[in-house]
């Protein structure tokens, strides 16, 4: 429902230099293309945009008040927007979209399967005489269990734990993300499961033991954070609240860090690096650390912007440091 207003004050069409096709103060919603300013449609009844343009399903639509401005949210109500008698919105096509769940399942399923292929030494990876053989080092079996557990956990969390803010992301992301995850998984798995693999030599068995403890600790930690974040948000909602430590000691890290899920994730991979003593794993950990730091800083900044009373002691990802 659109408010009726006298005169042209609320009406920003005069500034845009558009031809007034409807000189009377006709109530309704018009949608213009953000780039070309062509009038795409005029909605005077409640009828969704994609009835006129079926290829632009809801997830692809970016509707905004200003051609260069931010998108309006699904929850925004027309009545509360600063628009005139005829509301003018600008439309931008976000491109083909794909659901977050689909992307996560694909990008995590790949590493799980690929690693196992290398572990079981499927033909054409290593020399034929090694086909379907198993490594003689127990750390290699341990590493396979840890890696598989990690990605299985991620898959299950995607299906049962996470509550996503956005339904979809651009389709091209799935190619980018899968290349990253699958590529690195294959690279790491190749060396760890290689017939010429050398188990940790610096501190040997002790190193592997400590690494395993770090890995498991951080896996539990990471899971605890995911549960805590899930519980902040009632089912089906997209509310955002400040996360706080709960009874679970693994969440007490919230006192010092905004995104402890990334902190624990870094810890897990650090543990895995130590366990396998494999340079490609170290690279993967380093790249992941850089990316997660970028995300953590962004998240930290939006927390600060959104909440006046955000705890000042917290750092984005590493206590006191980063």
């Amino acid at each position, binding site marked *: 429902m659109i408010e009726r207003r006298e005169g042209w004050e609320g009406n920003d069409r005069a500034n845009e230099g558009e031809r007034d096709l409807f000189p009377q103060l006709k109530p309704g919603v018009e949608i213009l293309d953000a780039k070309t300013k062509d009038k795409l449609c005029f909605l005077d009844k409640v009828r969704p945009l994609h009835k006129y343009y079926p290829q632009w399903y809801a997830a692809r639509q970016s509707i905004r008040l200003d051609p260069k401005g931010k998108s309006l949210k699904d929850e925004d109500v027309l009545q509360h927007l600063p628009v005139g008698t005829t509301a003018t919105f600008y439309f931008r096509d976000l491109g083909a979209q794909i659901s977050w769940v689909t992307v996560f399942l694909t990008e995590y399923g790949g590493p799980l399967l690929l690693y196992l292929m290398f572990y079981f030494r499927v033909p054409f990876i290593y020399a034929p005489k090694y086909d379907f053989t198993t490594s003689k080092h127990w750390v290699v079996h341990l590493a396979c269990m840890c890696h598989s557990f990690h990605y299985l956990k991620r898959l299950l969390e995607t299906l049962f734990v996470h509550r996503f803010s956005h339904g979809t992301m651009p389709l091209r992301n799935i190619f980018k993300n899968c290349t990253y995850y699958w590529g690195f998984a294959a690279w790491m798995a190749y*060396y760890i499961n*290689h017939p010429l*693999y*050398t188990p940790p030599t610096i501190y040997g068995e002790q190193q592997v033991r400590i690494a395993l403890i770090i890995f498991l600790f951080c896996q539990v930690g990471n899971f605890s954070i995911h549960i805590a974040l899930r519980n902040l948000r009632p089912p089906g909602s997209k509310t955002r609240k400040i996360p706080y430590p709960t009874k679970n000691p693994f969440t007490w890290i919230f006192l010092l860090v905004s995104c402890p899920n990334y902190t624990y994730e870094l810890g897990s991979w650090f543990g895995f690096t130590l366990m396998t*003593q*494999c*340079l*490609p794993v170290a690279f993967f950990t380093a790249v992941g650390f850089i990316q997660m730091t970028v995300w953590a800083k962004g998240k930290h900044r939006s927390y600060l912007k959104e909440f006046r009373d955000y705890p000042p002691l917290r750092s984005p990802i590493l206590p006191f440091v980063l």
Partner: protein
Amino acid sequence: MSAPAMGTTKTAHSDVAPKKKRGPGALATAYLVIYNVVMTAGWLVIAVGLVRAYLARGSYHGLYYSIEKPLKFFQTGALLEVLHCAVGIVPSSVVLTGFQVLSRVFLTWAVTHSVREVQNEDSVLLFVSAWTITEIIRYSFYTFSLLNHLPYLVKWARYTFFLVLYPMGVTGELLTVYAALPYVQKTGLYSVTLPNKYNFSFDYHTFLILTMVSYIPLFPQLYFHMMRQRKKVLCHVEEYKTE
């Protein structure tokens, strides 16, 4: 792509539209002028060195040795340009500039310097000449631009010579890498094999082949980007008179 590092859209675009942008301060401008003058001079030294060596020997063969040191010095010095972008005194992308400079430095050190046997190849002369002419024009272009006194000839040269120099340079580079392959394979240069303590391996020979393959998607993109820039810059000259 080691071919004429012509800079990015932003640098070229500033020739077309004299829009208000907060450029480098006075001190930064002075520094950049000195930098670009020094680089122009350096590549002129290389050019002169090549000509003199050719006249002295009477053949194109083995001219690399006569300019080896200044080539290494001034090409490596171009790494400073990445710093300029990072600090913000040059409005180009750090990534793009970094990529271009690194590919040049890679060819200079990791291929030509490292594989002694290719230093006598004519392909080396091919890319060195292409680089030399390109860089002389490019650095003079920047110098004049900074001083707000860009002769049309220099602008024209910068956006026209690449049409020949870019393919010339790319050809020289590819032929040089190709020539290096057998020696790299034979000696296992820069390669690491299993087993080792860090469970890592690297085959430089394969890496070089992949580098050559990467020219296939990259070169056309960069070349056509430059052609688009050329159209934009040179065809708008009637609208924006440059002194």
